[in-house]
């Protein structure tokens, strides 16, 4: 697996001297984040395995998202990393130290909670100073660090406020400041933006990203929002039913989903049920929906499969009815940046295609007959019956 996208070059990467100097002035550029290793972790509640045999290698300074629907085990895994839950078997190490049975207060990992978990009886400054007080930092040093952290989250004027006097977005910033103020090497985040509205979410995503780049900390970020996971992460670990389904860069997951679950969960995907008719030179011809679909994949002749293709990979040719797969345009859905069209296939199934707003395809009208095609390499084949 390739190392993740880096926002600041690691040491060893050649950069012009001036650029390095600028970065050095901005912050301590070095990646301070340490590696987190999870080995064969199990955790079950009664008969239900919340986390089943998950292994995961998170590199130092990496931004890794745990992505999955609710009940997929991602939060339980995070709780075990924080030390609030103990795994029944398996091993967790942080920065090379086995912490499987180390209590949460001795792990030196920060956590940002979904509902912020700010202490309501303390001021913003007292909240942020809390981890420093626990570490017996002197008053002067403490005040300086609190000021610095408040600056970093752009809340300088709010030190004496109570959390209840702040908006949701501001509370989230305080929670972030409290988590970074003691220079943790690993930061865990449990759907930290879940309670914010969309605009603020996108804004905070960017800020968290920048903050992480500045701190060089390892971030493990739990979310059920695939868009958030794709935009923020160096790598994404997709979980379902307590298991790790696929781990990879956002692009790899999007372009090469390992299972139909991942294909379905990330981005939009058309699925067409069918049976493999023929395989030749790595190209599978699949009988689907009253036509034939082409997929570049290995398959067994006669196998029941599902063909998956993303709306943006579908190309439409007006009036073209000699293609292997044809349909009739049923509906045009305008959604701002793009226009989606729904095509009714001969057997009644629907296929979604994304067309550029200014392309010829956008001039299609409901009822038009269209030929349907795609790059066989952009389509995927999954065994039918698998979820």
């Amino acid at each position, binding site marked *: 697996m390739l190392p993740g996208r880096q926002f600041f070059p690691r040491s060893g990467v050649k950069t012009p001297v001036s650029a390095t100097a600028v970065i050095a002035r901005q912050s301590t550029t070095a990646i301070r984040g340490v590696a987190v290793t999870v080995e064969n972790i199990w955790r079950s509640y009664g008969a239900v395995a919340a986390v089943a045999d998950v292994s995961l290698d998170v590199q130092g300074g990496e931004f890794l998202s745990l992505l999955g629907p609710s009940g997929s085990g991602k939060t339980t895994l995070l709780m075990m990393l924080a030390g609030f839950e103990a795994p029944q078997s398996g091993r967790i190490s942080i920065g090379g130290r086995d912490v499987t049975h180390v209590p949460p*207060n001795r792990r030196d990992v*920060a956590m940002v*909670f979904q509902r912020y*978990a700010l*202490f309501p*009886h303390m001021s913003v400054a007292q909240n942020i100073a*809390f*981890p420093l007080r*626990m570490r017996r930092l002197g008053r002067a040093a403490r005040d300086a660090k609190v000021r610095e952290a408040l600056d970093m989250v752009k809340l300088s004027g709010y030190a004496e406020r109570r959390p*209840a006097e702040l908006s949701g977005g501001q509370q989230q910033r305080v929670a972030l400041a409290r988590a970074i103020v003691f220079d943790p090497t690993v930061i865990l985040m449990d759907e930290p933006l879940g309670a914010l509205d969309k605009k603020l979410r996108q804004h905070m995503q960017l800020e968290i990203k920048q903050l992480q780049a500045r701190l060089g900390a390892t971030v493990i970020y739990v979310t059920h929002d695939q868009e958030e996971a794709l935009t923020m992460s160096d790598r994404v670990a997709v979980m379902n039913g307590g298991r790790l389904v696929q781990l990879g860069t956002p692009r790899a997951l999007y372009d090469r989903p390992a299972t139909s679950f991942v294909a379905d969960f990330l981005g939009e995907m058309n699925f067409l049920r069918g049976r493999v008719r023929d395989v030749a030179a790595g190209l599978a011809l699949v009988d689907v929906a009253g036509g034939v679909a082409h997929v570049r994949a290995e398959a067994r002749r006669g196998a029941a499969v599902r063909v998956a293709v993303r709306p943006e990979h579908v190309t439409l040719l007006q009036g073209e009815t000699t293609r292997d797969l044809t349909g009739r345009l049923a509906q045009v859905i305008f959604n701002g940046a793009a226009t989606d069209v729904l095509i009714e296939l001969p057997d009644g199934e629907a296929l979604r295609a994304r067309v550029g707003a200014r392309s010829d395809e956008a001039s299609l009208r409901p009822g038009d007959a269209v030929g349907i095609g795609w790059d066989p390499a952009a389509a995927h084949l999954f065994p039918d019956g698998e979820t």
Partner: protein
Amino acid sequence: MTASIAEVESAPSGTIQPGAALPGALATPSRRGQLSAGASLLLLAPLVLLLGWAFFLPIIRLLLTSVTRPHLNVANYIRLATQPLYVEVFFRTIWISFATAVLALLLGYPVAALMARPGGKFPKLAAVCVLVPLWTSGLIRSYAWITLLQRNGVINNALLSLGVIHAPLTMLYTDGAVLLAMTHTLLPFMVLPIFSVLKSLPQDLPRAALNLGASRARAFLAVTLPLSLPGVAAGCLLVFVMALGFYITPALLGGPRTLMIATLISQQATEVLNWPFAGALSCVLLVLSLGITIGFKRLLRLDRVVSHD
């Protein structure tokens, strides 16, 4: 019916707020699921009448007797303030009530904390242990203590047969016995308010404290304890004020030396038949309870110090 009440309500106000709805609109049930003010008052009326006639009136009459019989005077209050016996009774009552509250807090907080813990068998068991005594009559519980503490009671017999002591201990009819039994009786009133506050405390808060480097003890002291103070204050106030007026337990378990106010009032009213003096005692007890309640709230202002949703 409701329309007329609403009109009467809105009429004297005279100045209708700019932008407010027309007076007639007040009667329409705009706030869904809420009764109009008129209907609420109507529903409250029976209780108000009952309380007024059967509670406030007799109390006021009793209090008035203390200064009007046989003629307008304050002799009863002077007697109360100057006779060492009565002053002593008041101080003892306050002292025992205070000690009861402290004991109940020390014993009750851990129980409340246990009950508030999520999941498991123990929270439910603890809840049952707290609630069942609440459903048992105080009289029965006092007699239970008598069988335990009396000269040839369970404890003395056990200690004697074990050879720990050679003569039975005097436990019954002492301040200690009263304190013990009162704490036992009032414990649920300490546990329940603390429990309800602890239960509503988000789990994430102590977790956040642990995560930020606090040991379990420090997380408790810095986060859980301060946030549970409203419950502690409510429990202490409830127990203290209830203890001030406690009657059965001190009367049964206390000796002549452990006279408390309620017992004294009862003696004056039913044995000595000195109603005016009983009225004076009641008045002081009432003022004491109210004063302490108000003073306590003013002093701590806990609802302001700790405000979380």
